[in-house]
């Protein structure tokens, strides 16, 4: 059983998706939730069997798929993959649960797409075959496009179409990179280990770097490839926004760690600094824009660009702190941003407003919401003893090692970030009673449950980050050694 756990994790949501697609009526939500909880249970089961000391992939399942091209259905998890699989399996049930009180048109289609997307996401995080990786990459894109486009808000068709064509464009370049590497592999195979062995000259790696980086940078998104993101986050239904910001953007970061760095280290030597600078520009740029946002959903969208920029800067700094910081920050950011978007959804649901000047004085009417919102927010601004702190500390530390000035710019921006987030909190929760929020009911039922779970995670991982850190430690060290070895 345990040897098949990875392939089960990949395919089980697909089964759920098919079943949910053919179910009608009130049960749809519960069935979808059931599937995602079983998936979570499987991931937890794998956690109990996971060997932290082993840097290589575990629970490998390898089956020939298209023999003539050397394509295998090869999945497995090392520490890096496993952390992200855990993130996905934890967040999907929370996201489904968070939508329980909302009525959707054609709910069966929505939940089927959510589960289908989970297959794509876990496929991306566990693929050990470049072709499978590409297929899963696209398989994650298509459902989220439809989720955002069908159930989204104003101007959804134009906004989501831009998102779709933009990301598709990036991934086509990645496809070219993958085919090129495939032809260069000694045994004509898409296997990741063969990709790691390909030794190309500097010039080739240089353009291949951009083929891959473009795809990943659009997904994350890194400045200046971010233009699709704020609109899409704002327009998409909250379920979609949570999937996009909580999990999907990690695909880009994961892609950099898993494929870009170890396969093209010489390309990295030439362009790593450029990528790092772009990431830091993204941090500064997004923070400044976030400062001026009136729409709180948009504000969180921009703050998300800033956070991701810091993560990607930490990765391109290429040291252990940066990489480990990126790992834990991916998890924390996923949890926090889902929590933040959920709070915004709750506020919007009751007031039909997202503009901070229409809101105010909610804390007095909804103390539980105010308290949980504060905890999540503090996690997001990286207060010590919340989950955001460790990651951000490690990331800044790694950037400091890379270059002091970069760290100063990035660090100041983080403080800046705390200011606009707290200012927003102050206006919405304490400020003068807003027009839209004159009546406001506190959170109940499933809302409470989701918020409590998220707050519990924010606090728990703030105190005990090592639970997450040591999952990926061995793999991260191993990966960095591979990269350093190939750079010489």
């Amino acid at each position, binding site marked *: 059983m345990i040897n098949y756990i990875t392939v089960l994790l990949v395919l089980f949501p697909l089964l759920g998706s098919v079943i949910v697609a053919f179910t009608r009526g009130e049960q749809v939500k519960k069935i979808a939730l059931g599937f995602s909880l079983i998936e979570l249970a499987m991931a937890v089961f794998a956690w109990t069997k996971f060997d932290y000391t082993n840097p290589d992939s575990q629970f490998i399942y390898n089956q020939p798929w298209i023999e*003539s091209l050397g394509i295998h259905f090869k999945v497995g998890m090392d520490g890096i993959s496993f952390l992200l699989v855990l993130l996905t399996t934890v967040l999907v049930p929370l996201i489904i649960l968070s939508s329980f009180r909302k009525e959707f048109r054609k709910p069966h289609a929505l939940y089927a797409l959510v589960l289908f997307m989970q297959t794509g996401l876990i496929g991306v995080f566990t693929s050990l075959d470049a072709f499978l990786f590409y297929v899963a990459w*696209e398989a994650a894109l*298509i459902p989220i496009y439809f989720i955002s486009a069908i159930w989204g808000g104003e101007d*959804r068709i134009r906004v989501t179409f831009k998102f*779709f064509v933009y990301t598709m464009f990036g991934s086509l370049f990645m496809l*070219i990179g993958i*085919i090129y590497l*495939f*032809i260069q592999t000694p045994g004509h195979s898409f296997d990741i280990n063969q990709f790691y062995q390909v030794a190309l000259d500097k010039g080739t790696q240089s353009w291949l770097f951009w083929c891959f980086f473009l795809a990943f940078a659009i997904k994350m998104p890194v400045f200046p490839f971010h233009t699709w993101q704020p609109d899409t986050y704002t327009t998409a239904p909250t379920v979609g926004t949570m999937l996009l910001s909580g999990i999907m953007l990690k695909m880009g970061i994961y892609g950099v760690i898993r494929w870009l760095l170890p396969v093209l280290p010489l390309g990295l030597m030439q362009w790593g600094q450029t990528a790092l600078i772009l990431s830091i520009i993204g941090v500064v740029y997004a923070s400044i824009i976030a400062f001026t946002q009136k729409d709180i959903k948009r504000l969180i969208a921009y703050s998300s660009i800033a956070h991701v920029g810091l993560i990607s800067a930490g990765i391109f700094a290429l040291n252990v702190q940066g990489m480990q910081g990126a790992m834990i920050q991916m998890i924390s950011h996923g949890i926090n941003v889902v929590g933040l978007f959920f709070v915004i959804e709750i506020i919007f649901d009751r007031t039909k407003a997202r503009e901070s000047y229409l809101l105010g004085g909610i804390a007095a009417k909804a103390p539980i919401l105010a308290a949980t919102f504060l905890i999540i927010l503090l996690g997001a601004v990286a207060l010590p003893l919340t989950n955001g702190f460790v990651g951000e500390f490690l990331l800044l530390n790694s950037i400091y090692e890379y270059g002091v000035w970069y760290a100063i710019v990035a660090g100041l921006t983080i403080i800046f970030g705390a200011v606009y987030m707290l200012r927003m909190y102050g206006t919405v929760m304490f400020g003068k009673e807003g027009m839209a929020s004159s009546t406001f009911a506190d959170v109940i039922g499933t809302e409470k449950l989701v918020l409590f779970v998220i707050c519990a995670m924010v606090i728990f991982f703030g105190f005990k980050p090592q639970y997450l850190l040591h999952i990926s430690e061995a793999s991260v060290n191993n990966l960095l050694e591979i990269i350093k070895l190939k750079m010489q």
Partner: protein
Amino acid sequence: MTSIIIIAITAIVVLYLGLYKVKGALLPVSVLGLLGAEASLVCGWDKNISYFNEMLVFNNYAIAFSILLIATTILIFLMSGNYFEKISSNVAEYYTILLFALTGGITMVSFQNMTMLFIGIEILSVSMYIMAGIKKNDTSSNEAALKYFLMGSFATGILLFGIALIYGATGSFNLTEIAGKASEQPFLFYTGVIFMLIAMTFKVGAAPFHFWTPDVYQGAPTLVTSYMSTVVKTAGFAAFLRLFGSAFSSVPPIWTVTIAAMVVITLLIGNITAAFQQNVKRMLAYSSISHAGYMLIAILLLGQASPNAILIYSVAYSIASVASFGVIVAVKEHKGSDDLSAFNGLGRTNPVLAFVMTVALCSLGGIPLTAGFFGKFYIFGVAIAANYTWLIAIAVLMAAVGIYYYFKVIIAMYLRDSESGESIQLNGSYQFVLIFCVLVTILLGIAPSLITNIL
């Protein structure tokens, strides 16, 4: 050869059946004849039989493409129940002419002698001139036929020039002999090659010789359009590759620059023009130009992988085209228009039809897990192996444009609301064809090995 005879006889029988007004028997007889032809082809697999002093050679390449041509024709015929009756009282001539065209197509993919190439192209083209103009009282149909005929004859003339020059240079019509003596008279030979290149690109509708395509495609009845964009195009490319791959492969390919330029122009014109179309049928006409561009890449980089790449691309493209044109026919019949707005809300009123269209368009756009993805995958693979990075960059950009306009239709179907809520009823064989196309598209998208290794 047996297959050509069977199809020719079927065509004549159908013509007589039409004469005696046995309308109900036309379709079954045609399909039976085609199935018989398929069977005779399958029996000849791996046997490499040549006929009439090597005029035609039925090697596996020829058989694989012939099977594809016939299968596509069968699918189109199965959708035609009642379709031709509505536009004409002489239904038999549709079947007959399409069957005759098919014999031309099979000759084109199996020729070993340039005269047979010429005969095949002429049989196919003349049939298509007639089909383009078959709506006698329709001005756009007449315009299309005239345009097609004039330009097509011109291209035929150029083809003959080319054949004559090559004969002059090598003293033979036989492909293998031409390959052996290719370098004896380089000037004559290369001039001949360029002439033939121009003629062939005209026949497959690649830019800058594509001007007939949109008008002819739009002017012809939609099912005939789907025949043109699948059978005619596949036959053209198979012949193109057979000619260049066997007769002209022994000499340094001085035509690469020419074809490379054609690929770029074709991709740009086809895709960018398609992106601006508001009529779905016309959009598919332009997109078919762009597909010619992708397939030309395989001819530009002649190599061992080329036949496979072209075959996979043709299979994926033919099946997806049949399905998408099928949906267009159904929508047009019901709503009286095939503009983009006619597709609004189809996802709600006709989920199955919308799903078929979505899969077909995804395949045409090259989304993974559809057959079309592997078509592009192989073509890109050929080009990357030959280090044509710049060309691939353009091809990828254009593929993204392609996804843009294909998804416009998908967006209309799922995200926009329609005025009328009625659903479209389809007969059994029509549904069968659409579902069959979807299944094959997905099956080949998951397990392309079924066809990737047969050549």
